[in-house]
């Protein structure tokens, strides 16, 4: 449409992937004066800018048609931005980023070919199987049964593996096609909310995601002002002192009824390769927290100053959170802010 290069569109694409770990816990948000509308606003404001810069998103949300399904919000956004970018004339060869949806067994069993086909140009679903989690032979569960302890154990192990594997480049094998489709690693994570006492894994998903990202020294944007498991991490960083109980396995054994059966199964069956015991993960996480208490920007790799990092960690303002995460992403990835 335009004769001159558009000043509103990115000029060089990067193959980076920014991951969102955002969950809606109604009471938690409402106690802070916010609702799902604010969460959606925050997500879209951040995601839109990321996608417009040519970067991709990762979000491991489900595919059910529910009010708090942010997967569909992100897909609609990407679809709209792709269409919009295709109108841009000479710049349209630069591809708008897509959504990488990492989905662990058994959750991916609910994704139908129809769903996948509908969003195939916006989304890649990366299925993480029990085998990829290191489970073998008789340990593999054929039919998931939520009442069966082995099913729940395998699901938790596979979810942990998914979080670990998503931090590395991978491929989706396509029969008779070489090379396979490559899936880029997650380069940074934005964390918000998260369950503390009703999660189905060995520790809160947010904790695991923070840990695998910190271990690889990649940026972590903790938006702790909105509560949940991220809020616990934020408080632990901002309030120096003894180790918070919430960062110990014993606290979680007391508060999450589904954890003890998982741990029992773990002690009976043993851990698959690369599985890190939950106690070690809690210890490791607290060790990172201690470092972040001293140098938050350096440890979390936010691309911000220490003061701004502390503000980002604690703010309850959607606008402030969006501004600081954007600022950090732009600084870390050397992006030029686009007018809009």
């Amino acid at each position: 449409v335009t004769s001159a290069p558009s000043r509103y569109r990115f000029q060089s694409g990067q193959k980076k992937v920014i991951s969102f770990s955002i969950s809606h816990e109604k009471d938690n948000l409402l106690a802070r004066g916010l609702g799902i509308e604010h969460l959606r606003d925050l997500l879209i404001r951040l995601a839109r800018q990321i996608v417009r810069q040519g970067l991709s998103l990762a979000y491991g949300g489900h595919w059910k048609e529910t009010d708090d399904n942010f997967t569909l919000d992100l897909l609609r956004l990407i679809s709209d931005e792709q269409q919009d970018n295709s109108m841009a004339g000479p710049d349209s060869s630069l591809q708008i980023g897509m959504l990488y949806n990492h989905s662990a067994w058994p959750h991916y069993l609910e994704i139908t070919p129809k769903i996948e086909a509908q969003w195939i140009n916006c989304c890649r679903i990366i299925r993480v199987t029990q085998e990829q989690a290191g489970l073998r032979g008789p340990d593999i569960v054929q039919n998931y049964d939520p009442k069966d302890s082995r099913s729940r154990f395998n699901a938790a192990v596979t979810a942990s593996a998914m979080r670990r594997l998503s931090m590395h480049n991978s491929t989706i094998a396509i029969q008779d096609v070489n090379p396979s489709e490559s899936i880029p690693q997650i380069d940074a994570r934005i964390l918000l909310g998260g369950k503390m006492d009703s999660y189905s894994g060995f520790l809160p998903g947010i904790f695991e995601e923070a840990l695998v990202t910190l271990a690889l020294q990649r940026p972590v944007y903790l938006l702790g002002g909105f509560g949940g498991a991220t809020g616990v991490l934020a408080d632990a960083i901002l309030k120096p002192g003894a180790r918070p109980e919430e960062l110990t396995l014993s606290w979680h054994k007391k508060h999450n009824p589904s954890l003890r059966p998982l741990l029992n199964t773990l002690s009976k069956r043993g851990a698959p390769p690369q599985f890190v015991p939950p106690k070690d993960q809690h210890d490791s996480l607290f060790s990172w927290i201690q470092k972040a208490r001293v140098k938050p920007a350096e440890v979390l790799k936010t691309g911000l100053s220490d003061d701004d990092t502390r503000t980002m960690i604690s703010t309850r303002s959607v606008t402030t959170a969006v501004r600081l995460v954007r600022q950090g992403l732009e600084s870390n990835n050397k992006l030029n802010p686009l007018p809009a």
Partner: protein
Amino acid sequence: MASPQPIRIPEIFILWHPKCPLGDQLARRIFAWLRPGKGLGPEVFYRSLPAPGSPVGGLPPALPGESREQTPAFTKNRLRISNMQVVLPLIDENMVADPAWRHWLGDIATPSSLRVTLPVALDATAYNMPGPLREMNYLRPAGPQTQAAASAAAQISEDGVRSRLKQITEAMCRLMLPRHTSSMADATASGSSDPLPKVNIFLSHAKQDGMLPARRLRDYIYSQTQLAAFYDENDIAFGALFSRVIQTGLDSSDTAALIAVRSALFAGRPWCRRELSLFRRPRQDSTSVPGQERWRLFPTLVVDAMDGMQYSSGIPELGNSPMIRWSDDGINLEELIVTSVIRDAMLASFHSALGASIPLVGNQIVINWLPDPTTLLHIPALRNGQEFDVFYPGRGLSGLELDILQDYFPMVTFKCFEDKLS
């Protein structure tokens, strides 16, 4: 001489008791209505569940500026853009019966220059709130209400939701519309005795084929709302100078919006085009200085009253004005049209106030509407091909829209409020 009223940038707080079954549903509808997407509209916050760390049954987080103690996370890092609170307590039996909430609401509703309370009655017990609230005119469903409906606190009908949204919109628009201090002499900030003149909607139509929708809209405005309509059949005295009366109507600080009934003959009627062209001309704010200008445009809503198979030419003055299709059999269509245009007028006033908070340096212009070429061409600095930044409301247009604007205005860079103010 009249002077403009102080600029008010509101943020909205919706309050409901945690046991109120309707609160959550109604609060979300109000949020969606006042913030229609694309980053437009005032900030809306909720107050219902106890603040983190509060005892069971405790109060929600305090409102900014309240004497009740706040945790640093609520006060620190808060953007200081807004300078007024609009509090919408959704009052039901649970709120009335809870002593902590009664006391809190009593405090909040005390008249203040920084806070306006608009109580919303959800059931018949709502009027039993303490003094300052009880004396206010509650927002409540229009029309007669049966005893059963009044006590049916567990359900809210779609009519009930729409009725309350309509009243909230009207009240907000009256509050936000820039008036002159001479016309609001006894204004109190409490909203309990609102002395502001009625908000006026200008109805533009062709007499030959646009009378029916225009009359129905006028009748609706006078029978179902607290608004007024400028309708030439009523408002131009016999023998009066047509052009002067219309100009005065369009210029009035009470005129908030224009509804154009776009029938087949509308585009060919000189007076219709004249009204439209005058109303769609942005006006420069009196605080503008050369090179740093603030422009305001009030919204226009097009009611498409063309019959099937009819032919009519386009009207460039309409620019990107929104449109609603007319139907003689449309249920609640008048309400939809009037409430939509008043909501847009409220948003226009809000964005104008928000834009006024943007400090300008160098060649910069602030506008209170989503830009389109026709309206921008009224601004001499942009027409003359100078380098300018234009700040406009919301989260940002699509890349395609921005590319089109770049074609028309290659020296202008468009930037949204959200980027500028965050």
